[in-house]
């Protein structure tokens, strides 16, 4: 019985995704093209772009994320309510792309969880639509299994304090316990 309720909830969720367009660069233009008349994302029930993270459940990170922007990205990700998903659109968001430089974060998945990666520089609108279809499958399969959206408020506040304690951007590794732990990141 619970399983069936879950399936029903997931079915509702997957067909009414509200994307939060975190569009920083060129991919943002293709994101706009996906929403515009020719490709028309509304056919897949995901056209309701809302720029307020409180109203969204799908974050589409379109474009490279740089050092100055990453704290903003994390803050917005935390402001979104559970259940939430994240699409990393384009090579830059997924791996840093051609920008292997001092300022560009080499893949947002190092710092926030990502559900779906879209290759391409920039990906064509068809590719983004395919990613959304794949994400819908994923939501149907495993949507609420962890039940994160039913967590208590205290628990969520405790997690949020982690990032706020570190500060928006601390480049001083010696004073930052989280960084000291994460400096041993396997891919860096």
């Amino acid at each position, binding site marked *: 019985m619970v399983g069936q309720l879950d399936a029903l909830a997931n079915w509702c969720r997957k067909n009414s995704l509200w994307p939060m367009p*975190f*569009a*920083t*660069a*060129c991919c*943002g*233009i*293709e994101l*706009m*093209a996906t929403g*515009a*008349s*020719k490709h028309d994302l509304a056919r897949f029930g995901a056209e309701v772009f809302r*720029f307020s993270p409180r109203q969204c459940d799908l974050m589409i990170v379109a*474009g*490279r994320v*740089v050092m*100055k*922007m990453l704290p*903003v990205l994390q803050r*917005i990700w935390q402001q979104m309510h559970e259940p939430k998903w994240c699409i990393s659109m384009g090579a830059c968001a997924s791996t840093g792309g*051609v*920008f292997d*430089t*001092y*300022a*560009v974060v080499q893949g947002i998945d190092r710092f926030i969880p990502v559900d779906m990666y879209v290759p391409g*520089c*920039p990906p*064509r609108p068809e590719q983004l639509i395919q990613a959304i279809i794949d994400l819908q499958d994923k939501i149907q399969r495993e949507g609420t299994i962890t039940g994160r959206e039913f967590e208590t408020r205290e628990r969520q506040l405790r997690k949020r304090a982690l990032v706020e304690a570190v500060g928006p951007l601390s480049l001083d590794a010696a004073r930052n316990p989280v960084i000291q732990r994460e400096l041993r990141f396997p891919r860096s």
Partner: protein
Amino acid sequence: MSIAPDHDTRVRPAATREEDYLWTLNFGPQHPATHTTLRLVLKLEGERVVDAMPEMGYLHSGFEKIGEHLTFNQYVTVTDRMNYISPMANNVAWHHAVETLLGIDLTPRCKVIRTIVAELARISDHLLCNGAVGLDTGAFTFFLYGFYQREVIYDIFETLCGARFTNSYTRVGGVSHDFTPLVIEKIRTFLRTFPKTLDDMERLLTRNRIFVDRTKGVGVLTKEQAINGGASGPVARASGVTRDLRKDEPYLAYADYDFQICCAAAGDCYARYLVRMQEMRESLKILNQAIENIPAGEVNVGADQRVARPTKEQVYSTIEGTISHFELSMSNRSFEVPYEESYAAIEAPNGELGFYVVGDGDDTAYRARCRPPSVLHFSLFPQLIRGHTHSDVVAVLGSLNIIAAELDR
């Protein structure tokens, strides 16, 4: 949050004792009306903007540092991502600067082809910019009209070189793909159909009462401010600066065409909108003249100059072609670059887009400085917005057409 000190005391409102009534509003860096990633800290008194502190760098990705590590031909891919609304114009600007440094004279056919793609890029840029101004002031349909025509231009570019808008089209001494009859046919179709859409768009917005009220008299930039602040392109021309590099320093094939510089005197958001609309018509004029008179002959410079990759036929039949192919294919050999430096700019859709290139013997620039028009336009923003209401912020931002990737590089 501290407000940047102000150097221009003329436009600053009288110092107020009522500091308590002022409050600070953070705008961006992730906000629907910035369209890109930039941040404003606004100081408000009720609805009126007393001061604004623009902040940038939220998309700084080290373009100029990469330019010191990629060859002249590789770096064109990075320039695509600079002003991603009109990448073709960036490609043309970059290789124009490189060819100025190397002293390469292009073939007549290449000059015309680059002129055509640069003008198409200008149209697509102005469509998006004006569309965004419409979108921000509530005219969504206008935006969709513009975006549909952009898709047509994307189609042309896709037929031309395979990519929708990150084209990487130019090469040192030429272009990557010559025009085919299909491309020319598509451009002709576009030139036939686009004037009608442009008329429709004008009818939708140019005399629309709401739009005129929201943009006329808003964000006025005087001619002196524009020159002193380094504005260029449509922003400067809307304030009465009659400077257009296509006329002043004719590059490519612009000297051969009959067109006019579009200027306005008012310097407000509405004037900038009108200048962009009119520039699209002038671009159409240029395109109509260019597309019917594409010179025949080679598109890339000859094999004797050893910069552009020769055709297979040249490689197999001429000694120059064989040598040139060998020289360009070997990783440790390439074309010769003088120990010199030069600056060259084109009139990009947004303004003067130039590159200061320093050569040091090999085909990688020692320094590749990009002179972005957006930076100077964004620095003018506090002057434009003081005294207006905060709903005007989006109109002014939209009419300046600030593209973060070009702003921050």
